[in-house]
Each structure stands twice: as C-alpha cells, then as structure tokens.
C-alpha cells in the first residue's frame, strides 16, 4: 500500500502536531477595530477608494485593484473608516492601511450578492469578477488568483491540481475546510477545471487526512473528472512543483511555472472561496485560521475576518502562556515570525502559532559532518551543506553557479541537520546578495548599452559634422545619446534610462 502512495523524492517528516484537526471551525466573535493593509498580496497594492469617516458595509469594496497583478479589498465588517495612516504589516514594515471601527449595532451578516453563473460570459468576465472579489491564493503566498486563471494564448492546461496537502505541521485549516466544506471544494474545482479548459481536476490530500479524502470523494460522486488522490505524508509536498511531481510524476522545469507541463495548481481553500464568489456572491472578507502551538491556551480553528488584530485572535483563544516567546504567522517551517502581536490577520494568514523557549532553543551548532542528511532532504536536489559552507565564507558567485536561486527556502535542510547549522537561513541571506548582484549587473549592462549607443551617436555626429568644432560635436552627442538609449527598446535599456535620471 505504502509503495502505491504517491509522493515526491526527498523531503522530511517533521512531527505533525495536528492536534487541532478534530476541532470544528468556529466563528470568532467580532472585535472593535480592523486593520486592512493595502498590500496583502504579491503584486501592486490595492488603490484606496474610501475616506476617513465614511460608513462601509460588510463586504463593501474599500480598495480597487492597483494593477493587473493586484486585487480588490473589501470591508470585513459594517462600520466606519477611522484612519488611513500607515500601520504595521505582519512582515514588520509600516504600510498604508485602512482602519475600520465596527458599528456595534449593525447585524454583520455574511454578505450575499447575486449568484452569477461562472460559465456565463468570456474568460475576461470570469477573471475580472475574481479580481474584484479580492481572491488570492489562501495557502500562504497570497498570489492574486485571477492572474493564474488567465491561461496565456498558446498554453494548454490538461489538468487542475487542487492542493490539499497542508504539509506544514500544526496547520489544520485546510483540513477542516475539506471536511466541512467538501461540496464547495469540489464545486470550486469543477468551476475552475471547466473555465481553464482542463480535462481533469485532481485533489491531492496527504494520508493523515483520510477523513477529508472520504468527504471529498463523497462530494465528487457523479463527476468522474474530479479525482481525489491520497499522498504520502511528507514535507514540503504542498509546494507547487513537489505536488505536481507527486501527482503526475513530472518535473516542472527550473524557473518555469507548472503551466509549462500543462498543469495549474490551486489551494483547496482558494477553490472553495471560488464557489462562494460565484454561487453566493460573497467576496473574500474572512478566512479560516488555525491557532495552535505549545504556548496557546485554547488551540482552535477559527473563521477570522481579514484585518482582525492578532492580539484579539489570541485573546479569544484564551491568551498565551507566560513562557510564549515566538509567534509565527503561517506554519513552523516557512511562516513569518511576528515582532508584535499588534498586526492584523491578512488574506494569506493560514495559522497563528505560539512557541515557547524550549521549542525555540537552537542547540549548539557543530561543524558540518558531511553526513548528507540535508542532501537527502532537499526536494530541489541541491547540496545544502556545500551551499552553507560557501555562504559562510561569502562565496555568493559560486553559490549562484550551484543554482542557489532554485532554492525555495522550505527549510528541510535546517530541519534535518544534526549539527544544527542554520542552512536555509544562510541561503536566504545569500540569495538576497545574489539578487542584488544580478540587479546591479543588469543596471551596469543597461548603462553600458546606453554608453555604447551614445558612442555610436557621437561617431555618427562626428562623421556628419565633418570638420565641425569639438564643442559642437560634444553637444550633439549629449542629445542623441539619450534618444539612442530609448531607441534600443529592450527592458535593459529602460532600466538604464531610469538610472540615468
């Protein structure tokens, strides 16, 4: 049986700690104030459309998409806009945000709009609706969903893979959604499968959630183009490329999207939300969050309105024990550590975990034994021990040659290392160095191109001017130089122009 269960090569088996799995999703009561950063997703921030003092309804749009790779934002409660001052984002930076004070006397019903047939209209209508309903990937990365759904011309999607792995320890929100909203998950998968022209929708679920597999199979009865596939329990199976490998046995080429092999991957909660958007007209105003960890007094799975302060969520869960030292938004392997609990839950928040000192204490670091446990753990087949060794001596160029940029920072290497070397942490720092260097190189290249164009223009100028004076030729070079840079047209040249300013 074990041999038949699909999975990807390498990876690690962290302790699961899915103690909240049996706890049904409960709705967290409303609190006084909500903070909605305009940048909750990857891409351009949303564009503000409300004023201070304005009354807003639950589900009312309060910010428009700020570009194509951007989505709208909706008020999670009925209340009044109190402030538009910058607020602390979970990642620590101060960002423009909308603060809404709740209207204590309002009903706060879940917003219901007119149901829309998802198969009505063109793909543009479909995509525009999703963008305006504020949908992003709910697995954690918060990438605007509609961008993925618009399949570029010439590309063919054969299969939709719905990601129900939830391979991060502690997190159980997707598990509960699959159990309690199996019909929505299947409905959303069918909508998406048919809209993107895929033949098959496969829901991949790890074997520690067999009850969810059964619930989904039940819900998918009668549609033989939806299949539910149990997968071996292994981290990081929920990573897009690992999941494609696990389900189809195909490797997505490095630096490419799963689309390259005819696949689109979406998280289960995201597709469930898709059903909400079309069948009930509900925009993304709340999400399921797992609150867990050794320092949480009452671990829970909660429906939390987007924008709820983390402090309020933790208080609702009985508060933290006195020895809480680390609060993480997301899972323990890749989550975002919080410097303060006065930050809001955002669209990508899948979990709030609190750890104590004992869980954190990194034991003493030893030299690398070259035992190869990190090599066996790395799902991308890099050699983490060598990369860490190079990172420690700052040989970032060598690391680039060893494809450090292919690292997806899943942390399996750090997890596996018996010498407690912070491998992924070293790699993260190195990657930012490499990125900076690549950017610098691009700028230098663009400058060079501009310079060359200038030189060419100067030579032209000198040629045509013939016996003209030196001052004259210099002047003409100055003007033709800038037009030359603009004329080359490539993206590099554009960068060059920007830096010249």
């Amino acid at each position, binding site marked *: 049986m074990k041999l038949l269960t699909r999975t990807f090569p390498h990876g690690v088996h962290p302790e699961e700690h899915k103690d909240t799995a049996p706890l049904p999703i409960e709705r967290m009561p409303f609190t006084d104030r909500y903070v909605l950063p305009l940048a909750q997703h990857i891409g351009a921030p949303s564009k503000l459309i409300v004023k201070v003092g304005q009354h807003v309804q639950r589900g009312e749009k309060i910010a428009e998409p700020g570009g194509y790779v951007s989505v709208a934002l909706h008020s999670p409660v009925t209340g009044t806009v109190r402030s538009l001052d910058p607020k602390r984002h979970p990642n620590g930076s101060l960002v423009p945000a909308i603060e809404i004070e709740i209207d204590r006397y309002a009903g706060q019903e879940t917003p219901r709009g007119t149901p829309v047939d998802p198969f009505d209209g063109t793909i543009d209508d479909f995509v525009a609706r999703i963008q305006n309903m504020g949908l992003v990937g709910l697995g954690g990365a918060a990438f605007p969903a509609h961008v993925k759904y618009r399949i570029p011309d010439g590309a063919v999607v054969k299969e939709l893979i719905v990601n129900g792995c939830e391979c991060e320890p502690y997190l159980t929100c997707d598990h509960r959604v699959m159990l309690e909203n199996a019909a929505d998950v299947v409905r959303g998968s069918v909508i998406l499968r048919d809209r993107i022209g895929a033949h098959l929708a496969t829901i991949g679920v790890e074997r520690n959630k067999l009850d969810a597999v059964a619930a989904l199979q039940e819900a998918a009865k009668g549609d033989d183009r939806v299949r539910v596939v149990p997968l071996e329990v292994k981290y990081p199976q929920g990573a897009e490329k690992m999941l494609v490998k696990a389900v189809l046995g195909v490797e997505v080429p490095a630096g490419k999207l799963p689309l390259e092999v005819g696949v689109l991957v979406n998280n289960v909660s995201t597709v469930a939300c898709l059903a909400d958007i079309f069948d009930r007209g509900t925009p993304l105003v709340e999400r399921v969050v797992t609150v867990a960890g050794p320092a949480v007094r009452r671990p829970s799975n909660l429906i939390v309105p987007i924008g709820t302060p983390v402090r309020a969520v933790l208080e609702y869960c009985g508060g933290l024990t006195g020895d809480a030292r680390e609060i993480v938004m997301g899972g323990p392997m890749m989550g975002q550590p919080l410097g303060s609990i006065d930050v809001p839950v955002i669209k990508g928040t899948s979990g709030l975990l609190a750890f104590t000192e004992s869980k954190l204490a*990194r034991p003493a670091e030893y030299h690398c034994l070259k035992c*190869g446990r990190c090599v066996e753990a790395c799902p991308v087949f890099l050699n983490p021990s060598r990369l860490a060794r190079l990172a420690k001596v700052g040989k970032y160029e060598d690391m680039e040659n060893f494809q450090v940029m292919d690292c997806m920072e899943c942390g399996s290497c750090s997890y596996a290392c018996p010498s407690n070397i912070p491998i992924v942490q070293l790699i993260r720092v190195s990657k930012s160095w490499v990125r900076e260097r690549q950017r610098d190189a691009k700028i230098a290249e663009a400058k060079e191109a501009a310079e060359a164009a200038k030189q060419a223009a100067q030579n032209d100028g000198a040629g045509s001017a013939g016996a003209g004076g030196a001052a004259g030729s210099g002047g003409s070079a100055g003007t033709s130089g800038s037009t030359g840079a603009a004329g080359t047209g490539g993206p590099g040249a554009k960068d060059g122009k920007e830096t010249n300013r």
Partner: protein
Amino acid sequence: MTTTGSDLVLQSPPFDSARLTTPKLMQEVTLATVPVLLAAVWFFGLTALLIVGAACAGAMGSEWLFGPRDAVGRRGRSLGDGTALLTGVLLGLTLPPTIPLWMAFVGGVVGIGIGKLVWGGLGGNIFNPALVGRAFLQAAFPTALTTWRASGGADTLLQFDKGAFAIPFATSGVDAVTTATALSRMKFDAEFLPWLDLLRGNVAGSLGETSAGLLILCGIWMGVRRLYDWRVPVTILVTVAVLGQVFHFVSPEKYPDALFMLFSGGLLYGAVFMATDPATSPTAPRGALIFGAGIGVLVVLIRLFGGLPEGVMYAILLMNATTPLIERVTQPRIFGR
C-alpha cells in the same frame, strides 16, 4: 494574556528540527560498539578494555590539548561532540590483543592530532582519523601490529597480558604465544578456516574484528537507526562477495569462497564502522555506491594479490582520498534542470 509583545524574539524559520544531533549521533555509534567491545573482552580478556581505554585516552587527550578552545579560552570544547571518544574506541578495536598500551595511546594521539585536527577538526578531515592512527602504528611498529594471539574464553578472561604494560621503546612487548590470523593462514598456508568459527569469532585477529555475526547485527542495528548510509557497507560486502566468488570459481584451492572473504579479517568491522564515517565518505547516493564498490575491489585485490594478508584499512584510506573527486562527479541533477 501575559505576553505584551515586548518579550518576543524574532528568529528565522524553520521552528523545528530533527531529533538527531551530532553528539547524539556519535553517542549512538559509540553505543553500537559496546557489544563488539564486550565480545573483545570475552575473547581476549580484560586486556582488551585496557587497550581500548589507552586509545581513547590518547584520542581525547589530543583533542583536549590541540582542539579548539571556547570563547573564554578553556580547552576541551570539542570533546563534547563525542567524536574523539568514538575515534578512540574505533581505533582501539582495530588493534591486536597483544599490543603494548603505550602504542595504543600513541595511535589515539596521532589519529586525532594528525587524522582530524590538522584538517580543521570535525568534518574537515579527508581520512578516517581512527584509520590514520592505525596506519601510523602499522608503519611505526609493524611487528607489534602483526602479532596475534589465539582467542580464549572464560578461562583467560581475568588474565592480563604482561606485554600490555611494556615500557615505551624499551621492551619489545610481545611475549605471548603467537598465532596467525585467518587471512595470513589463507595467504601463506592456503588454509581456509571454517566460516562458522569466523562467524562466532573465536579466532585470532584484532580485538573487534573477529566476530562476524556480532558485527552483522551491529551493522543492521545502525542501519535501522539510520546512523549511516546503508549503501556504503552493502556495496562493499556485495562487491567483495561477488568478486571473491569469481576468483574462487577460477581456482578454488588457491582462493577462498565468498563467505570466507566476508567473514574473515577486518572486512565487516571496516564496512560497518570505518567506511561509514560521514565526513570521509561521499554524501550523494551514487557516490556512496562508487565509494563502496571501490573499497570492495581494493580489498579483494590486496588480499588475493597484494603483499599483505589484509587490505581493508588501506582500501578505505585510499577511497577516502578519492571522496572529494567522487563527490564532484556524483552531484545530483537539480530539480527541473
């Protein structure tokens, strides 16, 4: 709510790590040698404990004296990782039961000092430290390292070899009734010991290498506990068995069969405890196969055609030297490339 947010620490994920740490790994391997050590005491008396102890003292003393110091300059920081103790035990078990204690001590000093610390300490060495110590002893004191004594049992358990307490460089040390190992009898007398004796271990040989059965059990235990890459010992043994059997078919009276090749000499001990040293063997799975096969071939060649009766030590050391090269050519293809 007791946490105000001010006493939070910011660390970089992941917030969990595997249970196995380097000191625990070393402890577990050291524990796995205990049955072998007990067998050595049974076959060669309490002298075995003294010899292993002397090698450990040399190894740990050398680590203490030459190893890295901690932040405030105290010595012995690196003793905590348990590798010096392990090197001492592993070296001690490769020594003949008649060796003077001072030589075992010198072996430990050389093993850690020249085998490990000069390369930068833990993980930096190219050659297996215990085998460096043994190779030094073999070169410096060839007689002492090739003098064997028949194994005993309950009757000789409490007897100490007088030779063990020989004064450095003064007395020859060896005054026991000597005998030949299974491999020297094979090589020089073309006489093959029954493999059942080899499996049990009541034959002449180095302290820890005689009981093939026990070593197999230890090896399986370490494999189950995932203390080493199973590919290394398995490829070594398979290569030796296959190649040995081929020669046996060609000339059965000159060359022993596969079982004799597997159970005699230091092969099992080397395959289980020496070749599997993570620092000196390749990390990539394919590399481990090449490494193991290389050792197997060298062992057979040295045993059957070389000047020495036993070749496991040199086979492993030679393949240690090729490890960086193997590592270079066996890097796995990166995902999606």
